């Protein structure tokens, strides 16, 4: 199966290991990966801050970039949720609305793609360690992907899973919220870190680079011995 990868700007610049793990994992599951070079960013930071006009050109460029793809897959729930928002943003536009719908219809978050499209529930991974999982708000609420990551993690050998208390609570990232409302964001991420500690897990796993940068950055600053990993890295371990 041919899969077009949308790596996201954060992964491209800061978390190359997540991109690599995604490629290797999908290849192992029988996919052929294609990476269109003209991809940049889904536009979330500006869009969520209210700069809709300013970001439309970027969105159009993404729509064109993936126009010929059969499936678009990304290791980021919130960026895929953003793609699903495109048809609303271009609503009424005679050219771009249908193109946006086309992109939304074929776009999947990584775990969603593996479970729903590839119909694979066990990727044959092995990961030794005690882990907990952060359910990102955009992925669970806006994109509606709740079960897929749980199913896949549940089948990883040697993995010891503890559920994160108050898991549905936001980590305080929220794109520009994290800096615009830094005071409040700090309280939120602190509460999240406290809950992670309560599980006494060695690893915090997530499926969204933004949330992981936020929680991981705070864990680092506080010098806590918890490691933060993207779910692609765990599923790619053997």
């Amino acid at each position: 199966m041919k899969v077009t990868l949308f790596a996201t700007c954060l992964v491209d610049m800061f978390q190359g290991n997540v991109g690599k793990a995604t490629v290797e994992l999908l290849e192992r599951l029988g996919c052929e990966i294609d990476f269109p070079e003209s991809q940049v960013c889904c536009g979330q930071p500006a869009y969520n801050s209210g700069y809709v006009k300013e970001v439309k050109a970027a969105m159009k460029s993404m729509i064109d970039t993936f126009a010929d793809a059969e499936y678009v897959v990304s290791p980021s729930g919130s960026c895929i949720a953003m793609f699903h928002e495109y048809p609303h943003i271009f609503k009424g536009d005679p050219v771009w609305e249908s193109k946006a719908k086309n992109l939304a219809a074929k776009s999947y978050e990584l775990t969603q793609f593996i479970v729903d499209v590839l119909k694979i529930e066990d990727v044959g991974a092995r990961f030794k360690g005690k882990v907990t999982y952060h359910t990102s708000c955009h992925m669970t609420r806006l994109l509606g992907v709740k079960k897929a990551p749980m199913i896949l993690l549940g089948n990883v050998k040697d993995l010891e899973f503890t559920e994160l208390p108050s898991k549905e609570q936001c980590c305080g990232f929220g794109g520009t919220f994290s800096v615009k409302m830094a005071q409040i964001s700090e309280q939120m991420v602190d509460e999240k870190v406290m809950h992670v500690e309560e599980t006494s897990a060695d690893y915090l796993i997530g499926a969204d680079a933004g949330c992981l940068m936020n929680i991981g950055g705070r864990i680092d600053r506080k010098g806590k011995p918890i490691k933060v990993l993207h779910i692609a890295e765990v599923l790619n371990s053997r």
Partner: protein
Amino acid sequence: MPMKIGTNDFKKRVENGINDSFMRGAVAGAQERMGTRRQDAADELGNWEEWRNLGEEIRQHVLDNLDYYLEQLSENIAKRGGHVFFAQTAEEANDYIKDIVKKKNAKKIVKAKSMVTEEISLNSTLEQAGCTVVETDLGEYILQVDDHDPPSHIVVPALHKNKEQIRDVFTQKLGYQKTEKPEELAWHAREMLRKEYLTADIGITGCNFAVAETGSFALVTNEGNADLVTSLPKTQITVMGMERLVPTFEELEVLVSLLTRSAVGQKLTSYITVLTGPREELDVDGPEEFHLVIVDNGRSKILGTEFQPILQCIRCAACINVCPVYRHVGGHSYGSIYSGPVGAVLSPLLGGYDEYKELPYASTLCGACTEVCPVKIPLHQLLHKHRQVIVEKEGKAPISEKLAMKAFGLGAASPMLYKFGSKAAPAAMNPFTAGDKISNGPGPLKAWTEIREFPAPNKERFRDWFENREKGGGES
């Protein structure tokens, strides 16, 4: 602006909220309790999503036909001998009520259950006119006794106070001498209030829902005080927000069920008081004179706009009870009697962006509020719409942000620009980088790195790795 509370600016209010560890404990505890109870009550009802759809449909239908139902309600109330007054502004509403007070030569007023009278500052108007106004909902009563401390939650107005604080207030102001046990405190308030009902000249209430078909209005309370407010004084005035209507009792049943379950996780509340007009010949009690004041105060400006869905609100506070931002900053941080997600949407609409431009940004757009709202108001989307209006129409966004976002828009739209920029990033960030971290970043990274580490950009971008690999270059 009457619905405004306090004089501090947003940053200061947030700071006060964050530093109030007692309030935060109370809010977190309340959120957890109410969250579980709400979920259980919703599960128990079964088909929660269908109920929500129904709730949304009813509220949308009413808003789309508001003229019709307001007219029907007014006619039916008039038929029963009640008076209806439509107030365009807060002043008009206050003046009308002041007039009645004067005509009746009223000295004492008992009140039950009303956010809208808070919104229009009715109490201070009446006090200035020489009346004593007594709030009879326990929470409101406590706040009133404590020198008019403003409410911090739309269902539990005194949520920010603990029982010890309430005891101290009662001791200081009411000569109370017992313990901080909630039952003893409540009993004391009851005893104090009992006398007030009997000696009041006028009863004023809010209105959870008015039923257009019958000209009735319903009050949902847990203390039964609304029953006394509406049955003892000779004159009764009900003040309602313009949108708080249902067509018939059938829809009332659906909405009350959604309201009580969403608010406190109850199947039903202790008291649902439904009244229709003044007392009739054979009635044993009830007011001799009844006035309904329908308050617009900015609501009709919202009708027909993209913000119309916020008028679907039934004030259950479920959104407040799940909001992770409210959890840490508390109700007073919103600077409005309407707090939490609903307040962040509503306050700028009723009170203007000048006063409330920060509120739409006090959200991560996590969607918890939207998920829980029993009448399916897309709260996080409305918050986003506010941001768009602030940027595009109001011109209230900071210039530096505008420039940054323009630059972002350009960079993200131009693969070439991005490629150069991202390639240069590691070198540019080099002076700030230690190991694989940036602990003290420049510019926009400053606020981030005050709290957290920021990752240093990878020397080899993912796309370079991929390209190399495609070319048969080294696997890494």
